[in-house]
């Protein structure tokens, strides 16, 4: 029985370009208050724009408000309920943090303002650095990376720079292999590649953990620069041999990079630095609840050991004993350099610091406990109806498969779409790639047991439907304003932008 949702009227809305009417205007500006110079004297005619920005929409403020209010109602969001995307950690985005990020003293601060006049902003960075170093157990830190993948690139480049410095250019040129488990997120190999490494894939065991023998074997080749490991891994399992894994890699002269996307299982409970990890990235937009915003912004701080600290990006925020207390330090000759203009996604740092201070030491651990408990509760609730490929007790997320349902021709995608009819955002599907028909479920701590029960009931009901009425599931969703879209056709002849109907096409002559 569907308990979480029903259907109701939902507003239609065209593209803004279709709403546009010549002569409408939504802007207001003060009149120009300086004596005007003829435009030609400012910018030579040939450098001037001559298409009058044709094609851009002309609408009133009311049009804009109704346009975006209407289309916003087509979205699912955390505020509407549980968002069990495995690996994405969709937790509650505190309003308090949004308010903090909008304090004028921060929001109106220019990044190139004099350090002495931006001490508050630098203090926020410094304090956040301290807390994240403590949480990861890794003292070196840079908040410059703009997202997880960016942090990965940064961390891998740090490993490379360290090895270059340690072994010298030629010897280190032999170390160009980065080991990555087959269960890893796609950004891992992509980031390794961007840093000039060739990727070798490590098998996972039947248990869903890193295959130590295979790891040893690969390390034996001697050209290993490092290992990129996610822990808990993307199957939601803690790599219990993490210490041994780190030893093997270290003994082989490599370093260990940890993908910290799953830190929501560890904060306050265990620290990567204590496990032998050399460098890690965090996703502030996951573990530390900065909003995903429909696809960013993120923030991917990179934390590392004292040994690797000299190689972090510049500038770094440090304390000077004297006034001004905080300063930007550019003087790190071994630094890999800058990975972004200015200092990173500052607005996300404000929110993450507010998250940490609001939770406090006990709240941080409590959140981890509640997140893991919720995942275990779901694992327990679904195991009777869905195939659980790995026996191990999951941490903050759990993976199931469509194996049983597939016999009836019902696959993971169908189950996901049917969940929409039940009012839930689907879990992460077909990831990790090594599990066929994977359904990766991460409830986070931000959901109460009633909604967890609703979710479990929905999943069970779908399992029943798969047996009794597969068609119902195969054709889902049935209750949404649009059905499944033909993505294949969309990719074959991609339409990536609006264009005016031929009639008015003169208006956009310069555009195509």
């Amino acid at each position, binding site marked *: 029985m569907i308990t979480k949702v029903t259907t109701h009227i939902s507003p239609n809305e065209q593209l803004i370009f279709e709403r546009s009417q010549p002569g409408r205007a939504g802007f207001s500006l003060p009149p120009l208050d300086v004596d005007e110079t003829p435009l030609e004297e400012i910018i030579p005619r040939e450098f001037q724009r001559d298409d009058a920005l044709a094609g851009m929409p002309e609408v009133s403020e009311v049009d804009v408000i109704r346009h975006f209010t209407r289309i916003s109602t087509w979205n699912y969001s955390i505020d509407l309920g549980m968002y069990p995307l495995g690996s994405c950690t969709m937790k509650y985005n505190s309003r308090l943090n949004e308010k903090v990020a909008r304090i004028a003293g921060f929001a109106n601060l220019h990044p190139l303002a004099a350090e002495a006049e931006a001490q508050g902003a630098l203090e926020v960075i410094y304090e956040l650095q301290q807390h994240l170093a403590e949480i990861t157990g890794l003292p070196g830190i840079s908040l410059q990376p703009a997202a997880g993948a960016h942090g990965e690139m940064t961390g891998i480049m740090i490993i490379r720079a360290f090895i270059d410095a340690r072994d010298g250019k030629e010897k280190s040129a032999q170390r160009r292999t980065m080991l990555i488990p087959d269960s890893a997120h796609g950004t891992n190999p992509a980031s390794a590649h961007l840093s000039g490494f060739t990727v070798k894939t490590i098998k996972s065991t039947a248990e869903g953990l890193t295959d130590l023998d295979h790891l040893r074997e690969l390390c034996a080749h001697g050209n290993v620069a490092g290992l990129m490991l996610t822990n808990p891994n993307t199957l939601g399992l803690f790599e219990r041999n*993490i210490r041994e894994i780190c030893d093997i890699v270290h003994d082989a002269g490599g370093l260990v990079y940890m993908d910290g996307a799953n830190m929501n299982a560890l904060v306050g*409970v265990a620290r990567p630095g204590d496990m032998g990890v050399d460098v890690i990235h965090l996703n502030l937009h996951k573990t530390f609840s900065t909003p*995903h915003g429909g696809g960013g912004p993120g923030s991917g701080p990179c934390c590392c050991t004292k040994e690797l600290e000299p190689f972090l990006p510049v500038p770094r925020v440090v304390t000077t004993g004297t006034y001004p207390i905080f300063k930007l330090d550019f003087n790190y000759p071994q630094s890999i350099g800058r*990975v972004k203009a200015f200092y990173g996604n500052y607005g996300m740092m404000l929110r993450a610091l507010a998250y940490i201070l609001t939770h406090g030491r006990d709240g941080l651990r409590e959140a981890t406990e509640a997140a893991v408990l919720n995942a275990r509760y779901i694992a327990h609730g679904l195991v009777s109806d869905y195939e659980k490929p790995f026996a191990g007790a999951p941490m903050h997320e759990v993976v199931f498969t469509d194996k049983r349902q597939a016999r009836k021709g019902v696959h993971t995608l169908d189950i996901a779409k049917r969940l929409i009819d039940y009012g839930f955002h689907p879990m992460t599907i077909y990831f990790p790639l090594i599990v066929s028909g994977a359904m990766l479920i991460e409830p986070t701590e931000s959901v109460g047991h009633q909604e967890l029960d609703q979710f479990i009931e929905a999943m069970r009901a779908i399992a029943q439907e798969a047996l009794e009425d597969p068609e119902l599931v195969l054709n889902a969703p049935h209750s949404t304003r649009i059905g499944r879209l033909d993505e294949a056709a*969309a990719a074959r002849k991609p339409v990536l932008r609006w264009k005016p109907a031929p009639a008015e096409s003169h208006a956009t002559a310069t555009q195509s």
Partner: protein
Amino acid sequence: MRYIPNSPDERAEMLRQIGVDSIENLFDSIPEGLRLRGPLAVPAALSELELLKKFDAMAVHNEAARRISFLGGGAYSHYSPTIVDHLISRSEFFTAYTPYQPEISQGTLQAIFEFQTLVCQLTGMDIANASMYDGSTAMAEAVLMAERVTRRSKVIASSAIHPEYLQVAHTYVQHAGIELQHSAYSTETGATPADSFTGLDDKTAAVVVQSPNFLGCVEDVQALADKAHAVGALLIVVVTEAISFGLLKPPGACGADIVVAEGQSFGVPLSFGGPYVGLFATREKYARQIPGRLVGEAFDAKGRRGYVLTLATREQHIRREKATSNICTNEGLIALAATIYLETMGPRGIEEVAKQCAQKAHYAARRISEVEGFSLPFSAPFFNEFVVSGPGEAASVLARLASERGIDGGIALSRYDPRRPNDFLVCVTETNTREQIDQLVEGLNALTR
């Protein structure tokens, strides 16, 4: 903890139901020795009241946020209509994830499709992606893309590009087997002459130029395009002050092959440098080489129109190490803010903002150049930023201007180029009143008497 729905009692009951003895047992798979013994060395929890007081107190120490400001150099204070922040604050937008499930994500998807269209319209290009981290990383990704497209390994960038952008590009390409060369800008004009691209040859993947450049000068993009195309190289154009699109000929109409820009000018707060949004546009034929996410039009079985993430085969989650980029999370919400800004301002509004920026900047330049000891070293046309040469050390004049008059008068170029101790970069936008400009002029005058 007020963000956690389940109460301690409820959690205990859940533990009972799943047959786990204690919370601690949930972590049995973590070896005893690896678990933290004590609590983290992080402060105890703060209430809302205490937390806001703490942040307000820190904000007070950001004097620069309250100053009359003429700072630019890659981050600009433009006016953002109130509705921009109000609309992006709808939780349907800011608490949603990347739109992987189109049936319940059409709001985000349609907004991105509109964003892609607007970026094309502004830049004069065929296609644009759903955003990059910022202008600097977008430029670096453009360089990498040029290498993929041309299979050539040399890239020549104008030295008048924002220094931090060049630093980021260097970091990105250092292990990609790309040689990054620089071409000197003219110390007379402040622009980058086509003939400064010595070393331009058939191994050159791309020529990279910023316009208006870091010194505020408008480059002759068409000439540079011709020069690059003559040897089969691509022209990459970078824009840090996106409002200039309202007045200057779009790079797409001047032969640019890839256009990247910082979108912060479109209603995004300064926020000490981020989050901003990188715009990335190129020609249709390169669609399968573009980095980042793309949203395309699609239809369901009943023929209803919708939008989906498309051409995913370029991306890391499918192509892994062979992906066109490692980017995953991008700047969705900031792209939404820029979209709302652009749609609210409309073509006339963007033109008007651009016009006011240019007019006020030229008024300021004129007035400053009348002050004894101050001059404008460069002759090329500029938009709303310009370099001023002062009688003494720019850094100290600016410091006194700030402390004694409460005016942030500009960026001392010595921050990036020790050879220009007396020069500073002044930026004027529609938010600077004539009165503020006159105060700046008066201040420079008084402090150098």
